[in-house]
């Protein structure tokens, strides 16, 4: 067997673990507030009104925060989905899965940046 150091895996793994930290720290409270608390009427629905959100999005800090919140977890998920699919039966696709999964994350990154910095 001829082994050689892999140069790009550290990059993807680094993104995966950054995303893992961000998802661990931030995603639960977001799901709770926007997905459960507001729709169930536990807190004022005006908190997610069009006026309030668009006003918040004028703040560049909010945009940067959303970039971090949305982009890194995409790489986290892409990495895990890549390996899990191979582990539960798609082992023969092990070469294509990284392209599909990380490609999806890259596409998602472009969409987030486009919406936040071009459309708004």
């Amino acid at each position, binding site marked *: 067997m001829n082994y050689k150091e892999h140069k790009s895996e550290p990059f993807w793994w680094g993104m995966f673990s950054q995303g893992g930290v961000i998802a661990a720290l931030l995603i639960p409270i977001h799901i709770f507030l926007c997905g459960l608390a507001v729709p169930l009427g536990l807190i004022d629905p005006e908190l997610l009104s069009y006026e309030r959100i668009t006003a918040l*999005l004028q703040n560049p800090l909010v945009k940067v925060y959303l970039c971090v919140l949305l982009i890194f*977890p995409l790489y986290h998920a892409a990495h895990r989905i890549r390996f899990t699919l191979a582990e539960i039966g798609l082992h023969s696709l092990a070469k294509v899965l990284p392209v599909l999964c990380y490609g999806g994350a890259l596409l998602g990154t472009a*969409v987030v940046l486009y919406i936040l910095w071009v459309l708004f």
Partner: protein
Amino acid sequence: MMLDSETTKTYTRPISKAWWLRDRGYFNRRYFMFLLRELTSVFVALYVVLFIYELFLLTKGQEAHAAFQESLRSGPFIVFFLIALLFALYHSWTWLGLTTKMQAAGRGLVKIGTKTLPPIFVALGSYGAWLVATCVIAYLFLTL
């Protein structure tokens, strides 16, 4: 024993495709929990994609946004968010616990001078960070 694989007739029992349910005749709960842990990422991804879609709708104007907010009140969405929240919490729990485990092995990750920082501090730090982040975001969301 080292042997000549050309001349020795060996037999390898193949691992099953559903090894996380049954691996060569046995169910291993930890394999199953591993798969659940990896599955959390699917819910993280779905939530993020939904979030991005919401942002996109905002650029379409007030009407589109209001209609979507209304549909989020429907049963299926509530159920989805409930499940997603459970998975997201399981991710937080396992991920933050992992740093503590890494700190506890060998030289760990964080050293102060020549000593490895006791893992309990890493545990307090990572779960503490979760609590702080959660409170700060909730506070900002409610007051900004």
